[in-house]
């Protein structure tokens, strides 16, 4: 794997942002809206609840972490879609760029764009709603890492879907995080889900993160075992996602789909 082609893939995305700063708008707007909306909901719940439970860390913290994972996923898939939209596949894949270098470039791009979204969320959540996010301590880094890896895997699989099914399948990609969110148990304990949903939830690394975070906020100890389980699951899924993309790419080269992709994009 060479550094310069990876740098090229990242630089291309930075050029797009520089040439059209309006692209930054969706990176920060949706997460800001989520934080403001959920911030006021939690503030209201705190004012009407007699339980004494502080909803800010559980609900707002959940929103922040889930949005982070979603932004990472969208960072990968949007960077991929830029090549679909500009019909750049022929130029791109006729170059010496390898699939691994390309995917690595997309991942680095998503780190930059996802990091920007995370920074905006942290500023709003801590500044306006007094979310004491960093009091969670060291587990926070582990939570973020698992969600980051999960977001990357989801982004790679989403890109593979578009590569396999054609540019028109782009609409399948956007609702993916929303479809998974009920199973990820972002706002409620896994125990409230029916058994079949719990079974699905156990296959999703975010469910381990949110379950662990709730336990920690309730005064429990560092959720080592579930976090390790979630991390292993996320790592395995990342390997599977990479293999799926590589397989879809090989099939596209064998069948001629890659060569026809631009033409199909016009259809």
């Amino acid at each position, binding site marked *: 794997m060479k550094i310069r*082609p990876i740098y090229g893939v990242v630089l*291309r995305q930075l050029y797009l942002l520089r040439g059209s700063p309006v692209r930054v708008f969706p990176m920060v707007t949706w997460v800001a809206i989520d934080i403001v909306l959920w911030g006021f909901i939690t503030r209201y719940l705190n004012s009407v609840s007699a339980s004494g439970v502080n909803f800010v860390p559980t609900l707002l913290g959940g929103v922040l972490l889930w949005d982070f994972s979603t932004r990472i996923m969208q960072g990968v898939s949007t960077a991929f879609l830029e090549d679909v939209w500009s019909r750049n596949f*022929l130029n791109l*894949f*006729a*170059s*010496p760029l390898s699939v691994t270098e390309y995917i690595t470039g997309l991942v680095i791009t998503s780190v930059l764009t996802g990091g920007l979204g995370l920074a905006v969320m942290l500023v709003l959540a801590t500044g306006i709603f007094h979310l004491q996010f960093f009091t969670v301590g060291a587990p926070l880094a582990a939570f973020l890492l698992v969600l980051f890896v999960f977001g990357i895997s989801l982004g790679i699989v989403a890109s593979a879907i578009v590569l396999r099914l054609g540019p028109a399948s782009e609409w399948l990609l956007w609702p993916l995080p929303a479809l998974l969110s009920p199973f990820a148990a972002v706002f409620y304990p896994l125990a409230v889900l029916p058994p079949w949903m719990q079974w699905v939830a156990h296959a999703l690394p975010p469910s381990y993160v949110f379950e662990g975070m709730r336990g920690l906020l309730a005064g429990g100890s560092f959720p080592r075992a579930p976090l390790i389980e979630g991390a292993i699951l996320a790592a395995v899924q990342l390997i599977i996602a990479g293999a799926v993309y590589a397989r879809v790419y090989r099939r596209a080269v064998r069948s001629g789909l890659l060569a026809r992709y631009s033409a199909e994009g016009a259809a």
Partner: protein
Amino acid sequence: MVIASAPAALRVVHLRKAYSSKLALDDLSFQVMPGEIVGLLGPNGAGKTTTINMILGLLEPSAGTIHIDEFDLSRQRAQALERTNFAAVYATLPGNLTVAENLMFFGLLYGVQGLRTRIDAMLEEFDLVALRNTRCGLLSSGEQTRAALAKALLNRPRLLLLDEPTASLDPSAAQLIRDKIRTLASTGRCGILWTSHNMHEVESVCDRVLFLSHGKVLLEGDPRTLAGAHGDASLEDLFIRVTRQS
């Protein structure tokens, strides 16, 4: 200036591509020597673009081998493609990047050394200096072709594939492009595979032509003598006759 003693810029051996019910290429073999311009001719659907896509690694052959500057494309893809480049009317540069940004992007992908200097040289060579900060989507057809050729020559390719490079150009611009390609070939460094439906252009530019039909080479030879050898007045007459017969 064809360098016959040097290794072939492109060597295609027994290339075959079969889809489930259709044979797109059938046992295609040819080579392009450094300094040589080879025309790939044939009617629509003859297999020209299929051949080019396979040489660019975008399409996997069912059988056969492709060597670029002695590197086996299937096993040494990166090395082979580092020595290749292409320009085609259907593969324009991303319209949302400027000319200079596109050249920087593709220069990094191709691992070009001394990239900034090389970009300046290409902008100069293709009269794009004034357009370096213009988005490619805003360029005229002729300017886009020049930008695509600047990208295609950025990595000093040993093999250059040109798929109808002058199709959207006015006669004057097309003449300039032909002159540049001939000059490039005359250095003896680069072999060029050129597809075109303009037989006059093929006669004036190519050293040799391969006439494809139904995925096979039907005819091969010097474009200036091939028509006479087959009893036709011009290459265009030969093209029309052979296409209708096959």
